């Protein structure tokens, strides 16, 4: 009688754990989809932002103007966390960084977009980091 009880108990336990595993797998697939959606959103945000700062706020495509170095414009471009870095390639000590207040930590999980543009006689590396 006790043997029969233990057999049933083991079967119930196995079924219970298999159910848990299946549920874990399903939630894992949902998490992957969510992760890809976040990356997709980051990617589209970054593309729009880099096109805007190198084509809309400039004289022509990739011909930077003083608008690009104006903090009141560059710090309020979007609500998502971003960082814009202008680096002079001829004089590497010259660097301008603009960002909005929503940034938490730019050390990981970001997408970077780079363009090289002309301003005031030299080439600048324009980087847009989107979190």
């Amino acid at each position, binding site marked *: 009688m006790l*043997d029969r009880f233990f057999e049933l108990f083991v079967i119930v336990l196995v079924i219970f754990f298999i159910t848990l*595993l299946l549920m874990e797998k399903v939630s894992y697939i949902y998490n992957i989809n969510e992760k890809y959606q976040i990356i997709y959103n980051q990617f589209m945000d970054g593309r729009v932002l880099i096109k805007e700062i190198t084509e809309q706020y400039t004289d022509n495509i990739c*011909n930077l103007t003083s608008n690009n170095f104006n903090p009141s414009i560059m710090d309020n471009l979007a609500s998502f966390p971003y960082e814009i870095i202008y680096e002079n390639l001829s004089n590497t000590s010259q660097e301008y960084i603009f960002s909005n207040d929503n940034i938490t930590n730019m*050390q990981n999980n970001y*997408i970077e977009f*780079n*363009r090289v543009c002309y301003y005031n006689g030299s080439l600048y590396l324009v980087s847009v980091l989107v979190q």
Partner: protein
Amino acid sequence: MKSFSISIFIELVVVIIVLYFILTSTYYSNFYIRGYNKEDLYASLISINYMYLNNTQQLNSSLYQIVTNILPYYYVEINGQVAFNNTNLNESEQGIETFYIINGSVDYVDIYWK
């Protein structure tokens, strides 16, 4: 009647616990993605036109600044001769040809990358 043995029960429990950890382990990583680079390269190459270049050597240095900052693997030719590269031509997958007019003469530039 079959008798129940405790060793099988323990084995089962251990196997289930191990399986649980193997199947539910997810790979968490910090990711850093470099954005799509073809359109950025085209836009960046336009900026050479705003510079006042005098000779092919200056074109070479400007191209070097642009290409090395945007492409991870590149193979660049100016007028059919290798200017700078960090990969072989047969390994590259895509490429573009463009030209710049400097002092009235045309300089052809081929950029390949992978």
